[in-house]
């Protein structure tokens, strides 16, 4: 600090008002944070509340805040409207989809970080544009293609088309994590006679493992939550959990208690992920650019 600033700050009155302003700012920050938390959490809590209220009580205004919760729908939904099957389908799609993504994106990110590749800029631009493309541009041609190859309404077909957004996203993340591996380590393993593939598997993969986990989680969450493509490319055999939730609308009336119980059931695994992998998710969302 300059001497002038020290002199200004050491005057007691100025210092007191400076402290008071700091305190006001802190209180204001907390008020904003508490309001944001209430607005953020309330709709999720309300979803849960509706799922535990009998139809006649669910939509009273003002609502009953004290009531006997009814959890019966959390059991019955598994037998209704193919929800159990849809839940299994989503698990299969996510496992197959994420494995495929990592298998494709990891070597690609390694090549981008380790080598100078001809046309690299254009490949990266292609990834950005493919990621950006609105879903229905590729959904309709894929619908026709899948119909003729027997991939329509299959978990595998869905896991495959998801690569169009998952691969670019995963390449961006993994490349950021690989950049943190000291170059010399890779070079040293090559000097010791390892092939490029061995150097990827023995040096880069172990060191970037947390980053790969973060990538897998974020890609998996996106696939689990995806609606647009799943709606168009599945019917009932491979229907995913999000599409099944929408299915509780029925023909005559919406079965709100079942629909909300299904929605809560579909959200819970993702909320657990968010809790366990908070740090990785933040790194992932910022493309590893910020720690």
């Amino acid at each position, binding site marked *: 600090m300059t001497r002038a600033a020290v002199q200004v700050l050491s005057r007691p009155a100025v210092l007191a008002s400076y402290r008071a302003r700091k305190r006001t700012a802190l209180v204001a920050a907390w008020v904003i944070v508490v309001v944001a938390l209430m607005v953020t959490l309330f709709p999720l809590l309300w979803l849960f509340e509706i799922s535990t209220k009998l139809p006649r009580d669910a939509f009273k205004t003002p609502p009953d805040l004290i009531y006997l919760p009814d959890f019966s729908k959390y059991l019955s939904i598994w037998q209704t409207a193919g929800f159990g099957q849809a839940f299994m389908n989503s698990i299969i799609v996510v496992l197959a989809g994420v494995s495929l993504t990592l298998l494709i994106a990891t070597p690609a990110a390694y090549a981008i970080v380790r080598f100078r590749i001809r046309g690299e800029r254009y490949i990266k631009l292609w990834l950005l544009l493919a990621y950006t493309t609105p879903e229905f541009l590729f959904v*309709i041609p894929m619908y026709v293609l899948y119909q003729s190859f027997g991939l329509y309404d299959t978990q595998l077909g869905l896991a495959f088309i998801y690569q169009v957004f998952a691969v670019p996203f995963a390449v961006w993340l993994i490349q950021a994590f690989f950049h943190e591996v000291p170059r010399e380590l890779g070079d040293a393993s090559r000097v010791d006679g390892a092939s490029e593939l061995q150097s990827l598997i023995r040096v880069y993969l172990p060191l970037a493992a947390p980053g790969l986990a973060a990538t897998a989680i974020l890609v998996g969450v996106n696939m689990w939550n995806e609606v647009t493509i799943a709606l168009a490319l599945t019917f009932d055999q491979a229907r995913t959990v999000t599409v099944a939730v929408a299915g509780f609308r029925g023909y005559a009336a919406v079965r709100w208690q079942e629909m909300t119980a299904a*929605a809560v059931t579909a959200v819970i695994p993702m909320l657990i992920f*968010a809790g366990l992998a908070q740090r990785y998710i*933040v790194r992932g969302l910022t493309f590893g650019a910020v720690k």
Partner: protein
Amino acid sequence: MTAIAGVSARSRSDRGGRFLVPLVAVMALTSIYPAVYSLIYSLFDWNWGQRLNFVGLANYVDVLASDRFRTALVNTVVFTVSAVSVELLLGLGLAVAVNRVGRGGGFVRTLLLLPLMVSGIIVSVAWKILLDPTVGLVGYGAEVLGFPRLGFLGDPGMAMGSIVLIDTWWQTAFVFIVLAAGLRALPAEPLEAAEVDGASAWQRFRYVALPLLRPVILIVLLFRTIDCMKVFAIIFGTTGGGPLTTTESVQVLAYRTAFKQLNMSVSMTMMVIFTVIVLGIVLAYQRLGAGRELTR
């Protein structure tokens, strides 16, 4: 020494191409094949059946002249501009506030990012209940405060605003998380120097922090804009595009055209035009320097 130099030189050579073969193959099949297919079939008249007539650019003329398509395009742009600006302002404010809180900030961050983990369909279910004109809690709360009964998603004048509100609840956390991380990563020296020079908190934020944050803000804007232009799930799950066509986005219209009216070639024409617009926006953002780290 020479060995190391030799390896490095080889590492930088062109042999990395084979590591990209799976990526190029899969991306070609999932992005280039459908794009070319759509381009070709948009020149035909085709509706699932045997009839397949070459019509040249007739579909393009029809779609561009159609009021419904133009309405959907305007709706999509209005939605994107409103949602992205509201989310940017709220997310920035929240980022500043949470970074001030210090102790407990990590836990707060985890709770605030929960909406990002929720599927658009489930977001729709929750908000359809909350915004219901007769039994919804938001309307009830407004009535208690002395407002008249509001229609929200069912009111042609309020439906689009309600969709923006829903998206704001859902996606502001993305803006917040990225900007909060960006703010924490700012170098301390320029901010301290400005403080010593007597700049107020607002001046330090406006003239020092914000310009330094520009690359982070640009990438947030890029991703939110892309995402909002593609809006589908939260409209499909709430209004389905109504009342009338007041919330019909381009993707919702394309879905209806293809899967309800079975007008495949018309739907593909819409998507070709729309994709050109969206990719144009992305390239414009690139010009501004957005997402340089992704394409460098």
